[in-house]
C-alpha cells in the first residue's frame, strides 16, 4: 500500500505557504523543510522486571511492560509509525491546549489533550461534557483516518488531532 500525505498551509483566504510534503513510502527522500508539527518521544520501557526478585513472578508479570521500541517495516505499510506524538502547546483565550497521541501497530491507541480546568473554561467544560458523555462513550475509538472540526487556523492546526495524525503518517 502506497500512501502519501501532505499538508499545505495557507490557501483560500490567507497567506499561502507550503508546510511540507511527506511520502510514507520513503520518508528519507522527503524534502526536510517539512516543518515537523509534532515531536516524537521515545517511550521509556519501565526498568522493573529485570532486577525484580524472582520470588514474586506473578506480581511482576502483570505489570510487565510491553516492548514496542522496534518499529517494523510492516507497521509503516499500514500507515502510522509507532510512538508518541505531541502537538505544540498553544495558548488560546481559554488556556493552554496540547494534544498527544500514541500510535502502536499502525493505529492510534490513545489520544489525550491537556486543556484548562480552572477559570472560565473550567466552569463551562465539565457540565457540558457530562451531558454529551453518553454519545461520546459510544464511539470512543480514536482510530480514524481524518478529523472533521470547526475550521482551524494555520496557528491552531498545530494543536489539532489532525496535525498529530499527519505527523504520524
Amino acid at each position, binding site marked *: 500500500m502506497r500512501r502519501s500525505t501532505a499538508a499545505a*498551509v495557507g490557501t483560500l483566504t490567507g497567506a499561502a505557504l507550503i508546510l511540507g510534503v511527506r511520502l510514507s513510502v520513503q520518508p528519507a527522500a522527503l524534502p526536510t523543510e517539512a516543518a515537523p508539527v509534532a515531536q516524537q518521544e521515545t517511550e521509556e520501557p519501565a526498568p522493573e522486571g529485570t532486577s525484580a526478585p524472582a520470588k514474586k513472578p506473578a506480581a511482576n508479570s502483570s505489570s510487565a511492560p510491553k516492548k514496542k521500541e522496534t518499529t517494523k517495516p510492516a507497521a509503516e505499510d499500514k500507515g502510522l509509525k509507532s510512538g508518541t506524538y505531541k502537538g505544540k502547546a498553544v495558548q488560546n483565550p481559554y488556556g493552554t491546549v496540547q494534544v498527544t497521541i500514541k500510535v502502536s501497530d499502525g493505529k492510534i491507541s490513545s489520544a489525550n489533550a491537556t486543556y484548562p480546568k480552572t477559570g472560565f473554561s473550567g466552569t463551562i467544560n465539565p457540565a457540558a461534557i457530562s451531558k454529551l458523555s453518553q454519545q461520546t462513550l459510544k464511539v470512543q475509538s480514536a482510530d480514524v483516518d481524518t478529523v472533521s472540526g470547526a475550521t482551524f487556523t494555520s496557528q491552531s492546526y498545530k494543536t489539532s488531532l489532525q496535525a498529530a495524525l499527519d505527523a504520524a503518517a
Partner: protein
Amino acid sequence: MGTVVSIELADDLPEPRLRELIESTCAWLHEVDARFSTYKEDSEVSRLQRREIRPEECSADLRLVLDRCADLWRETDGYFDAYAKGPLDPSGYVKGWSVEVASARLAAAGSTRHHLNAGGDIRMRGAAPNGGPWRVGIRHPWEADKLAWVLTVRDGAVATSGTYERGAHVWNPRTGGPATGLRSVTVVGPDLAVADAYATAALAMGELGLTWLAKRVADGYESAAVTEDGRAFTSPGLPVAP
C-alpha cells in the same frame, strides 16, 4: 485567515506519480488562493469588490462561485450570505469548491482513492488505505482530543462548523448578532461546498437550524449537531461507524 490542507493518496501508484499528483493539487490550491483571497489586493475577488471589474467580466470560475453563493443564499433562507460582513466574501463557498475541484482533478488524473482535509472539512473518494471506507472523526466540541462521533464515508464530504475554534465568527443575519444556540454542526453529503454552506447556515440559525437540517436529508445531506448546553442531535441516516 490561513488554514491547512492535508492530502492523503491511497492509490497503488509509483511514488514519483504520487508526488506529481500532490504537487499539482497544492499548485491548484495556491492558485485558488491567489485568485479568490479577500486578503490579497490583486485577487480577482478584491478587484470585483473595488468594482475595477464588472461581474460579467469575471472568470468563469468566479461567475460560477457567485451563482452558487446566490443559490445557497436562497436555499438557506438567507443564512448563508457571501455579503454577511458587508463587502463580497465568497470564501465560505470557495474553500469547499476548490477542494471539490481538486478531488475531481485527482480522479481524472488517476487517483481514485484519496482524501483532502481543508481545515477540518473533508472530501474523500474510493477506499481508505485498509480497503474499507474512510473513518472520519468528528471533533468533540469541548475537548480537542476527543471525538463526538466516528463516521464511515467512501465517496462524499464531511463539513463541520462550530464556535469553539474561532469564537463567535458566524453571524445571524436576522438578529445582526453572533450566532447562538449551537456549538457545532456537521453535515455529510455528496458535495463539500454545499455541506460546508449548510453547516455554516445551520450554525447561524441556532436551534432553529436543527429543524432546517432535518429537511436537508431529502437532498442527501445528513447531519449531527451539538447545542451550546451539550445536547447532541443526529439525523437518522448519519453514517456512524458500527
